[in-house]
Each structure stands twice: as C-alpha cells, then as structure tokens.
C-alpha cells in the first residue's frame, strides 16, 4: 500500500440508464421524493475526488459477525448461518482497499430491529441486524450472518421484499458513495419486487444477485454467498488539466 500514492483522478460519469431513475411509480414512495428537474453536472472537484477514510482501529472484533455481535454470551442468532464475502472493486477492475463497508438486514423471520417495523414476525433477542468491516488491501471483505427472511411491505396490496442485505460503501472519493442491496440466487421474489424493478436493465439487476458459493462454505457450519461490489472508476491522474503553476 505504501508504494501507491492516493488516487486523485476524477471519476467516470455515472450511467443513468444503469441506475434506477428517481421517479419509479411502481415504488410508490418515490413519487413524492423524486426530484423533477435535471441535475447539474460538473467535472469532479477535490471535494468529490477526496473522501473520508476509516482506519481498522474503528472495528470491534465482532463487527463483522452478526450471529454474535448482538447475542447474549453463549447464545447466537437464529437462522441459516451464512458467510457473505466478495471484493470491492472499481470500474477498472482494481480492488478498493481499506474502505468501510456497512450492512444491515432483517432477522430470519423478516423482522427488523427498528421502532418503525411493526411486522408480526418476532424479534430475535440475539440478533441486532447491523455489521461493518473494512476491505483488505486488495479490496476483499467478508462477514458472517444469518440469511434474512422475506417480508411484506405496504406498497401494492401484496408486495413482499425478496431476502436481501443492505450495503453502504464509501470508496476513496465521496462521489463513489453508494448504497445498494444484495439479493440471493434463486429467490423467486426478486423478479416481482417493485424496488428491484426500479432498475430497468436485467443485467444491472443481475449485478446485485449473489450466487451461492459452495467452495467457500464452511462444512457443517455456514453456507457462503459471493457478492462483489463495483464502485465508479477514476481517470488516470497523469494529465489532469491545470493552469500552469498550480
């Protein structure tokens, strides 16, 4: 890491056809929360190119273990034990090392530990639902959790979210900041979810579906799913335009 100067190139533009649009009426809450005017574009300045960094000292030993990080001593969360692992990379395929990844999810019954979640599935006293980690120098991360349950939500009369884990990722520049969701291979609710379908491109949806990863399961213990996350790429920094003397 020490050989590599920090990256200071500007980012490739976001692809608006790959991300969901702001206004997606199938997801009703977007209707009153979608800006209606065109965004104003500019080439990133230092405030977009730079971003906060978080050291490994931030992390507690159980931060990436949702099975244990809220559980009473000697107990553990209920549900299918899984490992989620993957790599945070940029659009050039380079690993994004040392970046903070946060995740949150419902419990095995589909219930969130949140005062606004009134779903009748019970809370698990040993499951909080949040975790975080920092990628290694090559961009890899992993955490252990239970497979979240699907849950109904008020949108249409009978909409259910597929099993999913929410992810928040920083990258190295603030313009890479991304929140997304991971889905599980084979879940029949993916195709009919109004939130999934805010994304119009099937290949883009596929990028959020984690395959089961038998090679990385821990025998007699935990299944594994692999989920890579791609952040915006940066231009080469060699020939950024500058006024002479700056």
């Amino acid at each position, binding site marked *: 890491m020490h050989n590599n100067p920090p990256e200071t190139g500007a980012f490739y533009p976001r692809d608006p056809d790959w991300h969901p649009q702001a206004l997606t009426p199938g997801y009703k809450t977007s209707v009153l929360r979608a800006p209606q005017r065109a965004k104003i574009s500019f080439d990133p300045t230092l405030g977009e190119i730079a971003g906060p960094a978080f050291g490994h000292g931030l992390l507690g030993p159980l*931060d990436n273990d949702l099975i244990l990080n809220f559980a009473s001593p000697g107990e553990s969360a209920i549900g299918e034990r899984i490992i989620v692992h993957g790599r945070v990379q940029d659009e050039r395929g380079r690993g994004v090392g040392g970046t903070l990844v946060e995740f949150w999810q419902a419990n095995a019954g589909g219930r969130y*530990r949140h005062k606004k979640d009134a779903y009748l599935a019970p809370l698990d006293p040993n499951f909080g*639902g949040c975790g975080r980690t920092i990628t290694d120098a090559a961009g890899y991360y992993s955490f252990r959790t239970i497979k979240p349950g699907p849950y109904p939500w008020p949108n249409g009369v009978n909409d259910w979210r597929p099993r999913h884990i929410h992810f928040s990722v920083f990258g190295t520049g603030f313009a890479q900041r*991304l929140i*997304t969701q991971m889905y599980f291979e084979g879940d029949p609710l993916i195709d009919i979810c109004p939130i999934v379908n805010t994304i119009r491109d099937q290949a883009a949806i596929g990028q959020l579906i984690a395959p089961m990863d038998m090679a990385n399961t821990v025998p007699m213990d935990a299944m594994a799913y692999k989920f890579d996350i791609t952040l915006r790429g940066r231009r080469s920094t060699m020939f950024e335009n500058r006024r002479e003397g700056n």
Partner: protein
Amino acid sequence: MQRLDRLKESPSQTAGPYVHIGCVPSFAGIEGVYPEDLGRAMITGDAKGERITLTGRVFDGTGTPLRDAMIEIWQADAAGLFNSPAETRGSADPAFAGWGRQPTDGETGIYAFETVKPGRVPFPDGRLQAPHITMWIVARGINLGLSTRVYFEDEAEANAADPILSRIEHKARVPTLMARRAGSVHTFDIHLQGENETIFFDV
C-alpha cells in the same frame, strides 16, 4: 481491436426506511454493537475555525418533512484542506474529521451538524471556490443518493466568483443552495420537488 473491458458500477438501491440500523444504530435503538454512531462528532478536539451549526429539514413534494432520511456531509477544514488520503496539498486539521452523518429526527424531521465553517478550495483550473459543504441525502423512496452543496449567503463576493454557482443557468434557483444565517446557526432546507426544488448535482 482491444476491448475497453470496463466493469459497470453496481446499481444503487434505496437505503429504505431502516437505514438507521446499519448507519446510525443507536438512533434505531440498537445499543452495544458499536461504541457510538459513526459520524456523530465531526469536531474531535480543539478544531480551528469558526464553529457553526448546520441544520434544516428535507421536504417531499407535499411539503412534509422526511422523518426517515439520513444525511452525510463532507467538507474542507477551516484552512480549505480535506481530511483525506487524497489531500495532497498539506495536512488537514487533525481535530476535524470533515465528514459527518446524521439522521433526520423521527418526529420533527430536523437534522443538525456541529461543524466548522469550511475554507476555500480550488477548482481544478485553480480558481477558488466559495466556502461550501457537500451534502448527500438518502432515504426510503430515494433510489440513488442525492448530492447537493451548501453555500453561505453571507459570502456574497466569494459566491459571485464561484465556478459552480456561476455556471448555473437559472439564477433564480441559486438561492436553493444558500444556507440562511442566524448567529452561528446556518439553516439549509432541502426541497425534493416543487417551486423551490433544491439544485442537485450529477458529479
């Protein structure tokens, strides 16, 4: 011909109504997993510069404040330096993180940051930008986090010369980027829709 072979950015999905669980768990009532919510304190010591409070609400198309949003801000220190490995011009104030994260209140919808007024940062061509704070807003119903900038209405001269502000064609919209000052409190409301829709940036 060779191929570019570029990957695609992972598509965004809404942060949802329970973003607090992952990002500000104690706000969601989850205690004991982390020592404290990340980004709660931006000032971690005897930070240099003018202490300010940045506060406001996020309004939907009916004028109702969002009570489930999460806001992050990112800014230079009082000397115009970022606390980031990508800052190559010098060392930022170690007592100032530059990054903060706050939920909007579950009842009132009010957010608030205790921070310092940022110094001026050069534009890529060397011109100085006016003091500003980058803001990022996520919530249920927002499919891709929204980026805007908070400028200061009492920086008229710097604002007039700011490279970003001066490229905005519809001058009548520029006031949507200005925090209103009362003493040390700077109020910045965000309007997602309507006549006063805040300018959002694609950066």
